[in-house]
Structure formats: structure tokens, C-alpha cells
């Protein structure tokens, strides 16, 4: 039976109450979204400036072989928003076939519409950032010219990884999207995380969960590396 598979950090619905006395995130107030498997079509999507569209999951099967499982029901075709093709990744030991399959899919989309690039959603542990950076460099080389590379990041990186580790990604990726939520709620102590993000030298966005409490810190707008928000859409977000 199908079930909604959420971005990796969402996997564990850990208790984390709303942290801020603030408004909840409304999709229509933003112009960039993640569209995940199971989320229904809605009018905001075509009007978006940027859309992150889930394409598949890449990870080891039970026997350890890395496989690509196609996800997402939208066929390549012309669209108004700039598209990022998102892959949920559970393992980095990609075979040449995986790179080829990803590029094949990318080519079909690039023939049809404006593709900003590929996004990798991988739950890299803080200690694994170095290995991850090497993988991303390899992926970057495999991608065609003019194709951007975006990665999602965990808030943990901001608190635990050294800033140098994160900055090391700056030569390889075009943007990092930090997920501000866990489960359906914004993480506690989000301000402490954000304060650390302010010291980064990588262009970044913040991922918000639709319906989660959010109030933007004033300093964010002044951060030259901050590119804006991406809203993770839900089917059942409470309407404010």
C-alpha cells in the first residue's frame, strides 16, 4: 500500500512542538515548492517560479545493489516554473548505470522545458560530509553543462558540522536547502540554527513545511547568501 514518503529528515516523526509564536506557512505566500509523491495537484504548482519535482529514489536494495526506483507521476513536458529534478538518495555507491539513467531522464526533461538542475536529498551524517562532498563532485562531473546541482541539508549540519565542512560544498553545489522542520513542525531552537547559517559562504535556501509555524528572522533578508524559501507541500495542511 502506498504511503506518502517525505523528505528524509521527515522520516521520523519526532516530537517537536511549534517553537515560535508565529504564523503558519501558507503555500500561496511563496513561489517555490517541493512536490513529493502522493501530493495532489493544486493551482499553486503551475504558478510557481521554481518547482522541485521528485523523480525517484536511489539506494541499495536488500542485497546491497544500488537501484533507481522511479517516482513521480508527471511526464516530461513544457511548464512555466523552472524545474529541479529531485532524487531521494540512500546510498552513494552509484554504478555508471545510475548516472546514465539520471542523465537520460534529465535529457528528456531538458528537451521539454526549462530545467534548473538536479537536487539530491540525502541524509548525510555530520561525519559523512567529506565523503558526501566527494560524491557530489563526482556527480557534478557526470551532469551535462548548464545543469545546476542542489542539495538538501539537515539543520544538524548547521549545529554540528564545522563551517569549513559545509563551505567545502560551495565549489560543487549551486545551492543548499536546509530543512527547518522535523515531522510537520518547525524544529525547536530554530533561531540558534539560523544564527549559525549566517556564517556560511554557500548560497542557501530554507525549506519550510506547509502549515508549520514560521517567523522569519530579520537578519535573514540581509544575508547575501540567502536565496529564499522552498515550501514542502502537504495534502492536509491546515488552512490558516
Amino acid at each position, binding site marked *: 500500500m502506498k504511503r506518502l514518503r517525505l523528505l528524509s529528515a521527515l*522520516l521520523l516523526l519526532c516530537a517537536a512542538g511549534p517553537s515560535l509564536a508565529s504564523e503558519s506557512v501558507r503555500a500561496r505566500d511563496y513561489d517555490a515548492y517541493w512536490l513529493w509523491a502522493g501530493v495532489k495537484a493544486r493551482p499553486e504548482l503551475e504558478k510557481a517560479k521554481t518547482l522541485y519535482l521528485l523523480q525517484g529514489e536511489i539506494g541499495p536494495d536488500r542485497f546491497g545493489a544500488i537501484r533507481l*526506483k522511479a517516482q513521480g507521476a508527471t511526464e516530461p513536458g513544457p511548464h512555466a516554473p523552472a524545474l529541479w529534478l529531485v532524487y531521494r538518495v540512500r546510498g552513494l555507491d552509484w554504478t555508471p548505470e545510475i548516472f546514465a539513467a539520471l542523465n537520460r531522464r534529465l535529457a528528456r526533461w531538458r528537451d521539454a522545458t526549462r530545467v534548473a538542475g538536479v537536487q539530491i536529498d540525502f541524509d548525510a551524517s555530520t561525519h559523512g560530509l567529506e565523503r558526501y562532498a566527494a560524491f557530489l563532485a563526482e556527480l557534478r562531473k557526470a551532469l551535462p553543462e548548464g545543469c545546476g546541482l542542489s542539495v538538501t541539508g539537515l539543520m544538524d549540519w548547521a549545529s554540528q558540522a564545522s563551517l569549513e565542512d559545509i563551505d567545502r560544498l560551495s565549489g560543487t553545489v549551486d545551492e543548499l536547502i536546509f530543512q527547518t522542520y522535523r515531522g510537520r513542525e518547525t524544529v525547536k531552537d530554530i533561531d540558534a540554527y539560523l544564527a549559525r547559517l549566517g556564517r556560511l559562504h554557500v548560497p542557501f535556501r530554507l525549506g519550510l513545511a506547509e502549515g508549520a509555524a514560521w517567523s522569519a528572522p530579520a537578519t535573514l533578508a540581509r544575508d547575501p547568501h540567502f536565496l529564499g524559501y522552498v515550501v514542502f507541500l502537504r495534502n492536509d495542511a491546515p488552512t490558516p
Partner: protein
Amino acid sequence: MTGVTRSITSQASRRTRRLLRLGALPLLLLFPHAAAKACASGPDTGPVWTLDHRQYADDIGLPFLSPGNDSRINLQFLMLDASSRRLAGLKPTVDFTPASTVTGLFDKTDLDTACGRAPRTPDTPIADGEGSRCLSLESGKRAFLEAARAEGAMTESERAALIEARNGLTSSCDAKSATASPAEDPLAKVAKPSSTARDFAAYLAGAKAFYDGAFDTALAQFASLAKSQNAWLRETARYMSARALLNKAQIGAFADFDGTAEPKISDKTSLAEAENAFKAYLADYPTGRYAASAQGLMRRIYWLARDKAKLGAAYASLLPHAGEARAASAIPDLADEIDLKFIGEKGESRDPTLLAVADLMRMRVSGDKKPDFPAKDLEAQAKDFAGREALFDYLKAARAYYVDGDFAQTLKLLGEPSPGALSPLYLAFSRETLRGQALMAQGQYEKAAEQWRRLLPLAADPWQKEAVELGLAMSWERLGTVNKVFLPETRIDSPRIRAILLGNVAGPILLRMAVENPDSTPAERRLARFVLLFKQATRGQYANFLQDYNAEGLRKDEAEAHSLMDSYKSTLLLWPGSKTPYPCPALHEVIKELSANANSPHGLLCLGEFMRVTDLDGFDSTHPPAEELGGSKSIFPGEPFSRGEIYKKLFAEASTPERDKAYALFRLVNCYAPAGNNTCGGKDVDLAQRKAWYDLLKSRYGGTPWAKSLKFYW
């Protein structure tokens, strides 16, 4: 740096996930609940090592009808029953190997394989879950070449030209030529080609147009072959016309941004024409080359048209015969298709098998939500189950059990067990496991154990046998007679069940017995020795540790048994001690010291150092939930060891030497590094307390190297 909290659950889970990657899954058997969480993609799949899967358990299966089973698992059991087939080729787990990586009784992919699906090979060019008209490009080529070779009414030069053209055919399906290209006449160089050769050429042009997505061109070419003298061309063109219409109808159906696979067909005319074309093909060629494919594509048309009635009827007619179908993997394939295209959407079928699968889903617990499935809703289906009364009676008993929690009623509805072999196998086995479950839920463990022992010889395959053993072991465990699991005359065969009980429940006697028993598998002996010595060392049984300690045995375990304890090596117990930051002798010496004085601050701190350096803090810190195998209270005396509590106690005691107090304090602050999560066990303290420890260390013990080295608290 002050702490930014991170969930311990998330950390624990990441740890288990890391272990999974290392192939250390069997170790997770000791912490089955954590393992289930780590393996599942959903939020929580509930307890695994129990016969009660009330929540959706993802790919973890029980070998009988169960609400927690993925619908595809329940469907396959019902299909097997319908054609009186049983699972073939299942082998019992005799010991742990690196390949035995299943968390529960079995994994869904193992069922697919046992039902006839060839295991997937990683070099499949198409991603899993991807499908398009391009899938038939290769098989179509082989069929064309075969037909061209078999046709006698062509010259060799015509045949050669056509074969060359088919071999050289490129289309937008190929990665190399991404766009459609005009067809060339393969017979251009043949003088006065025969009409048969021209038909083959027309077919090629049609096929190329089809794979290029030029469906109207394809239709025109295929239509021209209706009266061809070649039978293969006539039949294939009919079938391909219908496919071209279907593909034409589908244009734009998946164009919208939509995370669900809901088709939006605008060209309803082509869809209706496609349906008629497939029907006509099947009428003329009921056992034709493409009959199975045509039937499958008819179902796709119903799905695209959102015609649930027709789709349900198609499945209803297939379900009883899937086990006899020509394709070896018909059962898992049909289960996948039904799950993807039919189940869970509005407007269910009245087919008893499909209803049963949907009913079982309604008995599921979802998050905090209890199942809402009143008896009258099920009763209303009575007439749909006419002729399938046994299935209906089972569903009523299952509903009473899973939804109402009325175990007496469950037993009443189940009636008396029928004597003799189980028939039909999977339904009858489901009924008998439910009987055992209901007795256990009533606390009638003696009767439950009787039921399991009665069922054991009737189990038809290793999965069923392990399920019965699970019920039996859990019943004995709750009766306080877990020793029966290990005694020769009542020994449970499943090494996984024995391992879970050895790791979580067994006391020193059973563990020692497992070490010494020549029937123990190497991995089991290794586990038993490790758990015995570890618990003796950490639960204050120092004299016994010294008696049971066997360095040679530990080395032998490590060398001979693999995988069960991949990440916790047996040889960790040969810890040689450390010089810094706090000098300690070897573990064996530490235990000697504690054996002489159980309160020795140096001994306790060194025991802590052993735990910290070997990363064994988590080894004994989780226990299966009460409703799972191994969930009863451990027979092993004493409480799990917590470094955190030891440090607090040593620091608070006046008799502890100042230097040891300083080290205890230093370690206490470090318990929360690097992310504010307590990794030392025991009761968590708040940030203010951690700051107070830090300040105290810096002021009162500022001269110690530990105080000097500490820059933060967390």
C-alpha cells in the same frame, strides 16, 4: 557552545541505519523495535517480533492474513489458495549469515520470489517502476526478425534488406537519437519488391512511427496490413493499432504537476477506439500471441478511464486463475498491479478476495487512530461472500480481534479447529494463528502453548513454522518457562527466536548452557558468551564473570562465527585497558578489582572507560516492548549499566578521591557532547545542570588536565 537539541530518536535511528549499511542487521534482532523503525520508510511500523501486526508493517510480512501485511502480501496468499499452490523453495534459516538480512519473519520481495518472480538484477536498463511503450522495442525486434526469416514468399535480398533495416532502426526510444527521424524505405535498393516484402516494410515504418510517438502515421501503416498474406503481420498489426490508439489517448494524461498518478484523459475518443480495437483483437485471436498483453492493456484503459467497475471485474476474473497463468510471476505481478491501480480508491469491487484485502486494511491501526470498522459494515458484505463462507467467517473473527479487542468473541467465531491438514492452506493457517493469538491476548498462555504445539506439525513451510514457534516461544516466555525454548525435548528451531531471547531475557544459566551446548550454532554461542560476560561485568556479577571468562573462547568465537555481532566484536571483552585520559588495566583486571571491592571508584571508572572506548553504551540499553518476543523482564539479575549514574554516584560520595571526582565530572559533562544528547544512559539532566558541572570542574578542579582540556559544555 550551548546545546541545540536534537532528537535522540533520530540519532538512535541514524545509528541503526548505519549498522544496517554495515550489514550488521542480525545484531538488530536484539533491538527489534529499533530495527523496524530504522528499516521502515514510514513513520512507525509498530512491533515486529510478534504475531500481532496491527499497524502497516511495510515490507515486513507475517505468513498469514494480517492487517499489518502489505496488501500485496495478503493478496498473494489468497491467490495461492485459489489455485491450491504453495510457496516453493523456502529454506529455513539455520544460522546467521551475512545474507540473512530480514528483520521480521520474511520480506515482501522474498514472497514475490517464492511466488515465481525472478529476483531483479541490477543491470536492468529501465528503472524500477518505470514503464513506457519503449519496453517492447527489443522483444518486438526479435519477433520481427523471426517472422521475416520464416516467411517463404520473399527473396533473400528482400529478407536481408528488411533484417538490416530492423537492426538499424532508431527511434526516440533510444538514448542516442533523442528525436524522431523520418523513415527510409528499406527496400529502396531492391528491384520490384514483392507485396509481402512491401508489407514487412510498411510494418517497419509503422513500428518506427509508433516508437517515435507519431501514432497517426503508425495507425495508417498498420491499417494497410489488415489483408496481408503474412499471418504474423496481420495479427501483429492489429495488436499494434490498438496500442497506438491507447498511446495516442494517453498523450497529456500525465502532463500536470501531480504527485499522485491520477490520469487525466482528454482524448476520450481514442481511448474508446483503443478499447474496441483490443476487444476485436481478442475476439479474433483469443489465444493469440499478444492476448495476455492485450488483456493487460484493456485493464490499463479501464484505469485511464477511471472505470472502477470494469477494472474490478477484470481483476475478479483473473484472481482465481493467477496461479495457473503462463507467466511464472503472474501472482506477484497481479498483486502489484492491483495494489497500484485499484486498492484504496473509491468504489470497491464486490469480489470476495478484493473485499477481504480491503477489509483487512480497515482493521489497521494508523498512528494513534484506532480502526473504525463496525461489525455491521462487515455483516453488510455477507452476500458478497456467498460461496466463500470460510473466508468471511475468518474476517469476522479477525475483525472481532483487531477492531473490538473482543477475544472471547474471536474464539467463538472461529469455532472448533477442523481436524487434519490445513485447507485451504493459507486461510486455514490464518485461522489457526488467530486462535493462538486470541488465547494469548486473553492471558491463557497454557492453552495458547497447546494450540501452537498442535499447529507446529501442520506448518507447511519454514515461514509458517517460524511463526508458530514465535507464538510458542512468546507463550512460554510469558509463562516464565523460557527455558523450554532451549531444552532438547522442546527446543525451538529458529535461531533468530533463540537469539532474541538470549539477548534480552535469558539469565546466566541459559546463557551458559548455550555457550556449552554442542548443538548451538557458532553465531549463537558467540552471542551467548558475549551477553553472559557483558552482563556479568556490567550488572555486578564480578565473581561469576571471572569464573566464566575464557579469552580463548572469545577469540575462537570471533574467528569462527561471523555476522551475528558484526559491529560488536567478541574480542572487545579482551579490552587491554588504556593509559589516557584515565589509566586503566585490562577489563579482566578491572573486574578482579571490583570483585574485591564492588564500590572501588577506580574500578567503576575503569568499567566506564571500557564501555566508553568500546562504544558499548547502547548494547544493553534497549529492551523490546512488552508485547514483543523478548519483551518480558530479563531473568538476568541486576539492572543495565549506566555510566551516567555511576559518575553521578561517584561524584556525590564523600569517600571518592578528589582526582576520581574530577574525572567523573569531566565525563559527565562529556556525556552530552557533541549535540546535547546524553550518550551515557541514566537520567538526563537539563542544560543548567550541565553548565553547573562544567563550572565546578573549571573552578574546583581547574588544575587537572581534564579541566584544562575541556572548552565547552553541551
